[in-house]
């Protein structure tokens, strides 16, 4: 310990720590507990921003900025992309494949946390050096001097790792087309050959009132036509059926509106 060693940080930093630490822990808990993957991702992004502030408070100015740019900027957006691509319908299954696995897992996490905290509590860390001397020539300059001298080999290996990861991602997600795509003419000929639906599919919507893709068109007898709405919407159950009840509701609503506007009463007076 030299004379520059300190024992406490400033009051401002302590206040900042206690406020933001709560935010970070709540964000982490929400990441684990939220049912939808999108909400988990947003909570995790919040935690990462708080961690970036902590890096800045700890004198790691370069890492604080990199945390925001790389983690919340790139990594979390990549997560959101994949959630939109994959997980919109993928709610977590609540069926337990192993009996009592959730509670055992939570207990394991708790026990592990207690062990870690007790370990840190037992270490005699009463004073600290602070980065004043190390950051004297600038944080980025100090990091650069270390990366390009002491850690230059690790730095080059990291470059190789990044290239490998980029190529790996391309290889994993690239799909080679095994057969030629059918041309428009071939599709038309196939349609005529099968003879099932030769003209284009009928349009959705009930033109007198509604004109939207999620509303099936009505057949002459008032029933809805399956052909008029997209199969995807039908599978998701996102179709609005306006053939029966919905129309009655609308009629009742219009009658109420007219009563409020006074049209019906006026009509009655005219009748007298």
């Amino acid at each position, binding site marked *: 310990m030299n004379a520059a060693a300190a*024992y406490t*940080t400033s009051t401002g930093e302590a206040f900042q*720590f206690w406020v933001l630490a709560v935010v970070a*822990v709540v964000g*982490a808990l929400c*990441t*684990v507990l939220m049912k939808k*993957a999108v909400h988990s*991702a947003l909570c*995790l992004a919040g935690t*990462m921003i708080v*961690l970036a502030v*902590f890096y800045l408070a*700890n004198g*790691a100015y370069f*890492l604080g900025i*990199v*945390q925001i740019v*790389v*983690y919340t900027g*790139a*990594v979390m957006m*990549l*997560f959101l992309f*994949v*959630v939109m691509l*994959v*997980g919109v319908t*993928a709610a*977590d*299954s609540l069926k337990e494949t192993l009996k009592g696995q959730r509670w055992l*897992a*939570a207990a*394991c*996490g708790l026990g*592990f*946390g207690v062990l*870690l*905290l007790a370990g*840190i509590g037992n270490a005699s*860390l*009463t004073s*600290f*050096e602070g*980065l*004043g*001397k190390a950051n004297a020539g600038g944080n980025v300059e*100090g*990091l650069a001097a270390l*990366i390009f001298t002491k850690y230059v080999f690790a730095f080059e290996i*990291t470059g190789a*790792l*990044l290239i*490998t*990861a980029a190529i*790996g*991602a391309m290889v*994993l*997600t690239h*799909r080679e087309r095994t057969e030629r795509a059918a041309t428009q003419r071939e599709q038309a000929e196939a349609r005529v050959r099968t003879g099932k639906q030769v003209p284009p599919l009928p349009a959705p919507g009930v033109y007198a009132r509604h004109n939207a893709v999620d509303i099936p068109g009505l057949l002459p007898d008032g029933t809805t036509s399956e052909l008029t709405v997209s199969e995807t919407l039908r599978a998701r159950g996102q179709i609005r059926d306006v053939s029966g009840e919905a129309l009655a509701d609308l009629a009742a609503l219009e009658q109420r509106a007219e009563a409020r506007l006074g049209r019906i009463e006026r009509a009655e007076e005219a009748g007298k």
Partner: protein
Amino acid sequence: MNPVNYLYLSALLFSIGAAGVLIRRNAIVVFMCVELMLNACNLAFVTFSRLHGNLDGQIIAFFTMVVAAAEVVVGLAIIVTIFRSRHSASVDDASLMKL
């Protein structure tokens, strides 16, 4: 306040992430919990760097970030590939190493 509190916070975040990896079944959320654990480690490294008064801890945290970025790219690519073949992102459905 002693900066050791940052270490306590980092331990807390790490165990929350570890519990999440064990509890959740959605592969994407499991992956996010792994990221949380990596971030908690980074916080510990940065704090140690301050406690010791040199920048080596920050360098290690920097390398962790690079490795985490590479890991995310490959991991998400694997998740997308699994989803394409199984139409599910649940880790339960991928219990067999075949289709």
